[in-house]
């Protein structure tokens, strides 16, 4: 057939039946597949529409680029993967069998070049002898250096799947939570009857089904329930559920994982079935469904029988063939061979014949063929081959004939374009194993059946190995009744359903040993029977080993159709039972989930919440540059017009503060109210120094140790009343300190009458620092408040009235080393206060300064901060040894006294300055003796913080140096092998500015 005739009548949907199917023929949908312009109907999937149009070749295989067609009709599809949509919305490896058709849909085949029909990379098939099991491990072993540069890129180009969009996803995704008494997973006959039963008992029920409409096989097979056609019964069941207020039917929703505490992960494809989500709606929604009970009614997945050329387009699972014919009125061929090991063969033959398809041969692998199959074959005019098998499916881009070997060994060659194959069904037990349950092999059913179940889960219908429709309905109802009753709902009578008769008998038949040509076990990863056998010969005898060596079951379909057969081949090759071979592990997700769905709204700047300081809006208006410190966004510096470099701005801010006055938002520091009669005692125990003696109206620097003796955090704490202290922590450790205090109180000293609560967010607090700070503060305070050095000395603290009667608090604290105050007001006044400070400070030349200038000034003063209080330093290391009280016990006291923590040779805090003052030193450089090599053996410490000191006109730093305090004046080297610096530096005291602290006290 030429391309021209192949698609000549495509507009007419030549493979669409004239009537029937659950499709809406009143509206025609246009869609594109590669360069074809095709049509379909609402209710179609992309796969059914392609079939209706006679498109059989839809993709190329992963390794060998063999032509592939549609194999299944559901989410287990291994072959029909396409790139759906275009541009930023292009989504690779999308199963055509699960894509609902919409008008304007565009899909492209993948893994082919230049075109699907003429794929030049199909020459890979010539290299097939080298691409067998373990080829990655064998072929590309040497030389190792070739792997990254040559082999891997080459393999990735040749063997692959679709292309990612490579652009930001324009759609948004969402997360949500749902709660129910009974979660029913799967909306087939068992799931619907379970949901009905549980709902009638009054339970809150969620029914989740991955399809656009519930019904499962009832939509695909011509079956009767209570004398009504399956789809009619489904519609009635849906209608009843819809009337119940405590029932939610979640369509297009796949429950993909089971987690602790009854949590189920589910993905709802909210708007995958439309070209683009309507405005304000997400594309997909990731659900956490918390269920007290779950009924797994996930159904089963049909198995193939594996034979030579079983991957040719036109070889299709029999159940899928019936689905296309019955549900979609789309016929996958004109001349069919039906091959099965079970009694469903009769239904397949009958459905094909009813659709007007010429069934030429019926192959039953069993010698005893049931009467129903015989009759169906006779009626269809097909030859019947008992005890037969297909040796080879012949053809290229489509099956053209089948070579059948009869039970007596006679070969029959029949022309056909469709082979409907069924090896029985595999229960979908995946979710039963997610919490560690191991399924058990049932020899009689030749299936893995659910073993230990997750707490609260029961399994019903085909997923439990109950294959008949009648038993699915009955078992589902029973499971629904039991689930609800176990929660205390009334035990309703399970409805009894009448279904038309059927037989589900089968005899295991996995693969055709005398196959001709490649026989594929895993269609998506191109793993053949001979690959499995080769792996077995090479010693990979365990299912998990086989999987990794051959990649069997490792593709995006996770081997849903082929894994069982793979284990059977391995069992036979190693002369063991399938139970002995073992099984691979099912892990979440059941089907792939886009990472975007897990992220939900937490994308870009919404990755995590942002905390904004009270002055944020003002700082933003002023053009501040912000830096993220934890969740906080803080002003880093405030560029002035003409400044082109951060250092320029920061230097100006430092100079202005040291010479005049500056203001900085310090609201981000942690603030904790510690109250109660025992507050002082409590603080004495959590701080290394003493607070019970602190007078009301005073603040004190405090140092907190961890239990192991290292420094936890530092800050100032003011005493506002006899029984009320106001503690501050560093921004970074605010939460950690609060947790520490809660732990100490609740677990160590519950007898203390002390209460604490975070008030970080209540107060907007600004540091006003510099020689003119008092002038600015005086201008801000309401008249009659004396902040002179005598009335309000260094470390004073107390309430003030600010700017027209706003109740605030003033603390005379300094981190910069200058005369400084911190002024706090309730946060709703924060924005107005920063504007007032700037206004009142203008006559004194005030500047705002950011975290960089703050850092420069603290380094100039030698105050340790996060770089030094890094969890590895002790009070002694940081020069705070004097703070450790000897008059009381406190957390960390004993452990801080361990020999290793008081060892004089520990690296301790020093200042450093470059011998050549023009040289820049870098944080992270290691300190080595002047004449020693810069290696680990001579490492004596490192530079923790550096800054360009505007006050001194050169770079300075803080560092931790072995025996540091004894070595002031010594010259060592700051060696920076990573960035290439190595410069002599002079060790000096850490405080570079005003070491006597005179400026603080003026």
């Amino acid at each position: 057939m030429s391309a021209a005739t192949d698609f000549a009548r495509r507009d007419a949907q030549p493979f669409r039946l004239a009537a029937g199917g659950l499709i809406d023929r009143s509206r025609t949908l246009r869609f594109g597949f590669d360069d074809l312009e095709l049509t379909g109907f609402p209710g179609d999937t992309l796969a059914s529409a392609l079939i209706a149009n006679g498109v059989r070749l839809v993709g190329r295989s992963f390794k060998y680029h063999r032509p592939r067609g549609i194999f299944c009709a559901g989410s287990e599809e291994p072959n029909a993967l396409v790139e759906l949509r275009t541009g930023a919305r292009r989504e690779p490896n999308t199963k055509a069998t699960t894509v609902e058709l919409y008008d304007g849909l565009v899909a492209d085949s993948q893994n082919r070049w230049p075109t699907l029909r003429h794929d030049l990379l199909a020459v890979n098939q010539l290299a097939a002898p080298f691409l067998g099991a373990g080829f990655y491990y064998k072929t590309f072993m040497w030389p190792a250096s070739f792997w990254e540069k040559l082999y891997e890129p080459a393999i990735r180009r040749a063997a692959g799947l679709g292309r990612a969009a490579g652009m930001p996803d324009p759609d948004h995704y969402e997360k949500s939570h749902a709660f129910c008494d009974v979660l029913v997973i799967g909306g087939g006959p068992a799931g619907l009857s379970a949901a009905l039963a549980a709902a009638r008992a009054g339970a809150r029920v969620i029914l989740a089904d991955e399809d656009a409409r519930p019904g499962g096989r009832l939509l695909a097979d011509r079956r009767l329930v209570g004398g009504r056609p399956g789809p009619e019964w489904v519609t009635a069941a849906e209608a009843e559920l819809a009337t119940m207020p405590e029932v939610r039917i979640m369509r297009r929703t796949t429950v993909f994982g089971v987690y602790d505490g009854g949590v189920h992960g589910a993905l709802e494809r909210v708007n995958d079935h439309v070209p683009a989500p309507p405005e304000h709606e997400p594309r997909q929604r990731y659900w956490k469904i918390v269920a007290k009970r779950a009924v797994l009614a996930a159904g089963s997945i049909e198995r193939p029988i594996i034979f030579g050329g079983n991957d040719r387009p036109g070889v299709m699972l029999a159940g899928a063939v019936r689905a296309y014919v019955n549900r979609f009125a789309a016929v996958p061929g004109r001349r069919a061979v039906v091959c099965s090991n079970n009694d469903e063969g009769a239904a397949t033959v009958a459905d094909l014949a009813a659709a007007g398809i010429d069934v030429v041969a019926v192959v039953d692998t069993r010698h005893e063929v049931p009467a129903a199959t015989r009759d169906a074959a006779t009626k269809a005019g097909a030859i019947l081959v008992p005890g037969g098998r297909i040796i080879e499916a012949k053809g290229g881009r489509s099956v053209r004939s089948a070579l059948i070997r009869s039970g007596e060994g006679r070969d029959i060659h029949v022309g056909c374009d469709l082979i409907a194959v069924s090896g029985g069904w595999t229960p979908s037990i995946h979710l039963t194993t997610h919490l560690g349950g191991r399924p058990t092999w049932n020899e009689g059913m030749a299936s893995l059946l659910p073993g230990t179940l997750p707490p609260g889960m029961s399994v019903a219908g085909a997923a439990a190995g109950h294959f008949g429709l009648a038993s699915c309905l009955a078992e589902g109802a029973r499971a629904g009744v039991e689930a609800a009753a176990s929660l205390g709902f009334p035990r309703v009578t399970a409805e009894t359903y009448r279904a038309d008769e059927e037989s589900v008998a089968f005899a295991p038949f996995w693969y055709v040993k005398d196959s001709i040509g490649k026989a594929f076990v895993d269609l998506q990863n191109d793993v053949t029977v001979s690959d499995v056998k080769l792996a077995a010969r090479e010693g990979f005898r365990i299912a998990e080993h086989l999987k990794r060596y051959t990649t069997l079951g490792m593709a995006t379909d996770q081997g849903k159709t082929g894994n069982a057969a793979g284990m059977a081949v391995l069992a036979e090759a190693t002369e063991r039972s399938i139970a002995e071979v073992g099984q691979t592990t099912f892990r979440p997700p059941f089907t792939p989930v886009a990472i975007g769905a897990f992220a939900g709204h937490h994308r870009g700047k919404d990755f995590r919440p942002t905390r904004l300081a009270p002055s944020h809006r003002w700082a933003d208006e002023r053009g501040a540059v912000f830096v993220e410190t934890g969740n906080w966004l803080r002003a880093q510096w405030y560029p002035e017009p003409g400044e082109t470099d951060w250092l320029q701005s920061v230097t100006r801010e430092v100079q202005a503060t040291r010479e005049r006055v500056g203001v900085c938002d310090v609201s981000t520091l942690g603030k904790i109210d510690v109250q109660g009669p025992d507050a002082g005692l409590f603080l004495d125990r959590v701080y290394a120094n003493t607070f019970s003696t602190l007078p009301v109206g005073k603040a004190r620097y405090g140092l907190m140790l961890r239990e192991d003796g290292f420094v936890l955090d530092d800050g100032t704490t003011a005493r506002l009343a006899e029984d009320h202290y106001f503690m501050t922590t560093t921004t970074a450790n605010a939460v950690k300190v609060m947790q520490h205090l809660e732990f100490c109180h609740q677990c160590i000293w519950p007898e203390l009458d002390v209460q604490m609560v975070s008030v970080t967010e209540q107060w907007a607090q600004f540091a006003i620092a510099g020689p003119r700070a008092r002038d600015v503060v005086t201008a801000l305070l309401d008249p009659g408040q004396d902040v002179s050095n005598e009335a309000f000395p260094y470390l004073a603290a107390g309430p003030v009235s600010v700017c027209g009667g706003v109740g605030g608090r003033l603390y005379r604290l300094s981190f910069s080393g200058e005369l400084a105050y911190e002024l706090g007001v309730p946060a709703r006044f924060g924005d107005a206060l920063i504007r007032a400070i700037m206004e009142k400070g203008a006559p004194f030349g005030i500047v705002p300064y950011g975290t960089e200038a703050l850092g420069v000034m603290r380094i100039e003063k030698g105050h340790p901060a996060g770089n030094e209080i890094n969890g590895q330093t002790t009070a002694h290391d940081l020069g705070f040894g004097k703070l450790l009280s000897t008059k009381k016990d406190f957390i960390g006291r004993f452990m801080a006294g361990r020999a290793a923590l008081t060892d004089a040779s520990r690296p301790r805090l020093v200042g450093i300055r470059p011998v050549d003052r023009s040289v820049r030193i870098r944080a992270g450089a290691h300190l080595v003796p002047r004449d020693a090599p810069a290696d680990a053996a001579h490492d004596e410490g490192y530079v923790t913080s550096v800054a360009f000191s505007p006050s001194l006109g050169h770079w300075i730093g803080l560092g931790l140096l072995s025996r540091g305090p004894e070595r002031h004046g010594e010259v060592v080297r700051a060696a920076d092998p990573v960035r290439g610096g190595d410069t002599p530096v002079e060790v000096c005291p850490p405080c570079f500015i005003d070491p006597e602290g005179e400026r603080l006290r003026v």
Partner: protein
Amino acid sequence: MSDRLAARSALHGFAVPGRHGRMDGAAGVTVGERVDLGLASVMARKGQGTALREIARAAYGADLPDTPRHVAGPEVGFIGTGPGQWLAVSERLANGDLSTDLSTKLKGLASISDQSDGRAVVRFAGGRAREVLAKGLPIDLHPSLFAPGGAATSIIALMGVTLWQVDAVPTYDIAVFRSLAGSFWKWLTDSAAEFGYDVAPTR
């Protein structure tokens, strides 16, 4: 001396009054900020639980709840946030007036901290309110389990919240740290957009 500092609510600049999101049909939810609310944490002093309850009942006409519930007196409501801990809420005793009042009346029985400025309180109501909250709140708000008076301290989109139900509409009040008001508002409005939402004016 200068004019008194102007107060700005936590959602100033974030909440834009009017109809947003999906525009057709009635808005699924309404959302607004409760400004000038008095908020205070109340923590019982050791051994004073019984006395505290009695005095609080006499002073505020409310029984301090032992569970996460919101118990409203005529002027002040109390939300159980932990053992011996409550968040007091008052419209009448605005801002810091509440903590001042509590400190006076419960002196020696409880430690009081003003939190009026530390939280943004969002009032959130409407037929779709539960669906919107489900997108962030990991607790079950089904009316049989969570009714008017119900309260919870939980997390929404990585942000700590205290939430209590006001009426059966349902209407909820949600308190979130002030610095997170913008991020919370973004989450709330993104989540409500598909239903359409009305924003009440704020200050």
